[in-house]
């Protein structure tokens, strides 16, 4: 997922050093294997958006904005509102990011974050209907990545979730077959808080929240998203390495455990009590 992976030259020595440290339960920046870097979550930073959040994990920084607009439902789901998640790796985010259409990593990033929000049924899309089959609300979550230092997946995911938790949107009604904005402002109909936990495998060790440096030498990546009830709701293995069966099953436990901690932070930062 790291934007700089192909360009960052990390010698085999560095990897060996990392593996040796990891075998003793330590990381190159002093963290434990299952420790996140400090996570900072601020909401309401873009008043023009329906909801917004800035999330930093270590030096990785992203901003998510929610816009709630109206749209036409898909023919096969006339009774459901729309959800669109998009992420853009801005050229300001690192010396290796280039302007232009999203590459496969950026597409994967947006789709994995989307999967967590969508499949957890965080938003009750059945409540986002203005007139069935004709007009529904469309929730757009757009993420701008400002600075990269690894684990874009979790940072982006927490920003989208925090922005959703704090979002308020204007209600519309149908008057004589036309849409009319009302003065009623409501929070989004939310049911659960999905939290992704991204793990990296380096040698035989599993760590969470990899930095750029760690992503540059990792064998494989595993993102598992849990909901408020401890269910698994989304997952994605990335990079060419492999995971053993035990690592996969333990990964689910790690995701649940770390997810619980981070869900608390998201609730505290947004004042969300549901």
């Amino acid at each position: 997922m790291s934007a700089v992976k192909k360009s960052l030259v990390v010698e085999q020595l560095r990897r060996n050093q990392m593996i040796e440290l990891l075998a003793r339960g330590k990381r190159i920046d002093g963290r434990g294997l299952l420790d996140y870097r400090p996570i900072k979550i601020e909401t309401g930073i873009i008043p023009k958006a329906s909801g917004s959040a800035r999330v930093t994990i270590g030096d990785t920084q992203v901003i998510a904005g929610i816009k709630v607009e109206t749209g036409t439902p898909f023919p096969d789901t006339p009774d459901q509102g729309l959800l669109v998640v998009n992420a853009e790796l801005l050229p300001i985010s690192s010396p290796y990011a280039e302007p232009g259409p999203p590459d496969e990593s950026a597409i994967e990033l947006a789709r994995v974050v989307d999967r967590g929000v969508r499949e957890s049924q965080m938003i009750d899309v059945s409540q986002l209907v203005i007139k069935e089959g004709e007009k529904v609300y469309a929730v757009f979550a757009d993420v701008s990545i400002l600075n990269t230092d690894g684990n874009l997946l979790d940072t982006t995911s927490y920003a989208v979730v925090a922005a959703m938790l704090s979002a308020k949107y204007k209600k519309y009604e149908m008057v004589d077959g036309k849409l009319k904005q009302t003065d009623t402002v409501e929070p989004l109909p939310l049911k659960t808080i999905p939290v992704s936990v991204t793990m990296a495998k380096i040698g035989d060790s599993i760590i969470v929240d990899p930095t750029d440096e760690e992503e540059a030498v990792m064998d494989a990546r595993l993102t598992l998203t849990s909901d408020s009830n401890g269910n698994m709701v989304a997952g994605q293995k990335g990079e060419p390495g492999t995971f053993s069966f035990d690592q996969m099953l333990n990964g689910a436990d790690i995701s649940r455990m770390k997810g619980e901690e981070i869900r608390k932070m998201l609730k505290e930062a947004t004042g969300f009590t549901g």
Partner: protein
Amino acid sequence: MTAVLLNEQGLRHDGRKVDELRPVKIEVGILKNANGSAYIEFGKNKIIAAVYGPKEVHPKHMALPDRAVLRCRYHMSPFSTDTRKNPAPSRREIEISKVIREALEPAVMLYDYPRTAIDVFLEVLQSDGGSRCASIDCASVALADAGINMRDLVSACAAGKVLDQVVLDLDDVEDKEGSADMPLAIMPNFNQVTLFQLDGILSAEQFKQAFSYGLGGANKVYQLQKEALMKKYFGDGEPAMEES
């Protein structure tokens, strides 16, 4: 919807048991021009895999000095779905191409072929749910057919959930009506997972069960992959080539 996902006998809408695969047919070596090729029918999925390479890399700057680059394109034909699919690659196809490449890469001995490219093309002629797993199954056989050095085959199968029941190998109907889908690919002789995705809600117990169903399915597919390769290279099972 009208489909009965599970009946009183615990059978699925197409009559399968909860842990039963769809019928799978694999044929090896179906395209003349490709270095390796295969065709798979996985239920109603119909997919062709073609491997070109190892060959010179274009553009040249993409070449790696110590190993081959593996490239992968998963593409759905416009007529492969219920409503016509725009032939331009979608975001979904781009993501699937990436995860398929990453699923195959651990099995391919890329360091044996420095400065070359190995291209894997997957054309989904008809899709029926689980097409990424079927594509991986087909591609790994085509790579073997191309004579490329491999550590293992890669065998894939999805598990998931319909209603509240964990099931193996969801088809299109179950994928749309079901509540979870977990594609899984493994290297069967190394017990390693090379592809894993999940969308949909699974409890801790269901996650473990779906994972174990997926492994079982992938191992069954592995037997069929081996049989298909045996059939092409050794006739009907007996190594006929060097007898007498």
